[in-house]
């Protein structure tokens, strides 16, 4: 945007310093653009394009333009500086020596994203889709197959730019190669989907980490999507970031109502759907699915936990996510146990049915221990390893009870495995997390999917901020 040679100023009428220097500008014959009043000077910049393109941060800004280029700039009012820039002496007689200016409207936090989207070299690489005035934007996005069935926030360039402020990472950096279509997914594409999911910018680093974790080879996301089984990625978040972004690890931690929990999990699912191409009825062949496939994300309750944080236990201390192939929530009721031994037996009895009571070594599980249950272990000095070991001992099962036909149930393991003992869970196949509200002698089991190297292994990744 060309400026005429000579003296050029940008002002706004709301700024007292601009009002103060009005006579000086008129005396100098400067060409003046005003940001908020089209009638004050001969030019207006109500759209703020000039202010944006010339990086006006303060008003008044006085420029000396030579051959279309900026030769000098001063901001605010300073007699000495104005005289130096203009070469005119005795300016503004009767004015104070100097007076600071005001913020330019073009750097107003409420406007900067829109200006950047409209005039900036945004660096955004995504295809721009124009929606007609008569199109309902929610219907338009549903019709294009971009949603999970619920309304999404329209990913305008302004919103995506604002979302990208949540991470220092380059928008074009590839975060992960996303199954099933094995598409390279950039930070920008994650941001677009995070906007749609309803995320705030401060949620974005967690979404990025969750996507990295879910796309790791050992997580087996392709098969997890394609399976007829129930599961989808469940995200457990650890570290101080959970409190900073307002995640819920307490009352109703697995339920609705918390924006961070709801939208982070949803954003991951939308990336898988839109970027990876994993859509239900197409590659996603789940017989029943589970409601957690809309979103399944919560924070571990690290305070008053009997256990070290899950991610730290898995080698990633601090801010981190752990993804698990979760297939739904099974309640564990035990209101009478007053010893850790008794409660561990209840847990084991409920965990035995994970998938099917006659199928050992088949599916992983996450045991989510509530605070009232956790208190028993904390007071008895049981850590996670102790609890897992106790449950492991209780769930070492005689294979004769598990073979096909045993108990009048055809489902089971092959007969050649008779006469031995088999563990219900593979080593590392039972995860323990602490979460939930203060009251309630209930815990929860989230069953997994085909476990380990033949299926999905849980993956933990650092959240980079």
């Amino acid at each position, binding site marked *: 945007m060309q400026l005429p040679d000579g003296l050029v100023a940008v002002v706004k009428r709301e700024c007292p310093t601009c009002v103060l220097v009005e006579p000086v500008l008129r005396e100098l014959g400067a060409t003046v653009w005003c940001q908020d009043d089209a009638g004050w000077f001969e030019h207006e910049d109500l759209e703020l394009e000039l202010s944006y393109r010339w990086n006006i941060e303060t008003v008044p800004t006085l420029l000396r333009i030579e051959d279309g280029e900026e030769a000098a700039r001063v901001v605010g009012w300073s007699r000495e500086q104005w005289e130096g820039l203009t070469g005119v002496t005795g300016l503004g007689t009767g004015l104070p020596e100097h007076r600071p200016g005001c913020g330019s409207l073009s750097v107003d936090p409420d406007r900067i994203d829109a200006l950047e989207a409209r005039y900036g070299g945004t660096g*955004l690489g*995504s*295809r*721009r*889709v*124009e*929606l*007609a*005035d008569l199109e309902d*934007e929610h219907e338009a*996005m549903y019709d294009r197959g*971009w949603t999970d069935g619920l309304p999404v926030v*329209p*990913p*305008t*360039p302004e919103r*995506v730019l604002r979302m990208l402020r949540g991470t220092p990472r380059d928008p074009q950096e590839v975060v992960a190669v*996303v199954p099933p*279509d094995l*598409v390279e*997914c950039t930070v920008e*594409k994650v941001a*677009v*989907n995070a906007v*749609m999911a309803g995320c705030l910018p401060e949620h974005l680093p967690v979404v990025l980490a969750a996507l990295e974790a879910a796309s790791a080879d050992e997580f*087996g996301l*392709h*098969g*997890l999507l394609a*399976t*007829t089984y129930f599961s989808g990625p469940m995200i457990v978040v650890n570290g101080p970031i959970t409190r900073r972004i307002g995640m819920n690890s307490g009352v109703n931690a697995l339920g609705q109502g918390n924006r961070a929990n709801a939208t982070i999990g949803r954003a991951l699912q*939308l990336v898988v759907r*839109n*970027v*990876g*191409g994993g859509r239900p009825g197409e590659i996603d062949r789940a017989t029943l699915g589970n409601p957690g496939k809309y979103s399944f994300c919560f924070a571990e309750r690290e305070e008053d936990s009997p256990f070290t944080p899950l991610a730290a236990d898995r080698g990633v201390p601090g801010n981190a996510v752990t993804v698990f192939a979760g297939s739904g929530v099974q309640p564990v009721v035990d209101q009478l146990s007053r010893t850790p031994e008794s409660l561990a037996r209840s847990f084991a009895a409920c965990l035995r049915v994970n998938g099917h009571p006659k199928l050992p070594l088949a599916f992983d599980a996450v045991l989510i221990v509530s605070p009232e249950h956790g208190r028993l272990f904390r007071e008895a000095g049981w850590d996670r390893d102790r609890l897992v070991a106790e449950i492991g001992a209780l769930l070492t099962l005689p294979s004769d009870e598990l073979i096909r036909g045993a108990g009048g149930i055809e489902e089971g393991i092959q007969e050649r495995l008779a006469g031995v003992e088999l563990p219900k869970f593979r080593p590392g196949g039972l995860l323990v997390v602490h979460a939930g509200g203060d009251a309630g002698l209930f815990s929860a089991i989230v069953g997994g999917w*085909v476990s380990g*190297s*033949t*299926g*999905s292994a849980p993956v933990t990744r650092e959240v980079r901020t």
Partner: protein
Amino acid sequence: MRTVLDPTGERRTAERELLPRPASLRGRTVGLLDISKPRGDVFLDRLEELLTADGVVVRRYQKPTFTRTAPVDLRHEIAEQCEVVIEALAD
């Protein structure tokens, strides 16, 4: 008019022509790919019987696990050795 950014991977699927269907399998080499689902072998054993009786040369292959796509080497091997492949997809 409002502008939104495309949330998809913006991939264009490559379209490939189907190979001509063979009129008969007699004398041809047919690969049977077991994806390692339980009892997939029962289905493929029976298919092998029927195909062999029809004069088909049968070769058997197996994926390491049904939860992952077939390794590229396995796909290459099948493509090199067979004219037709039949995949047993489910339990």
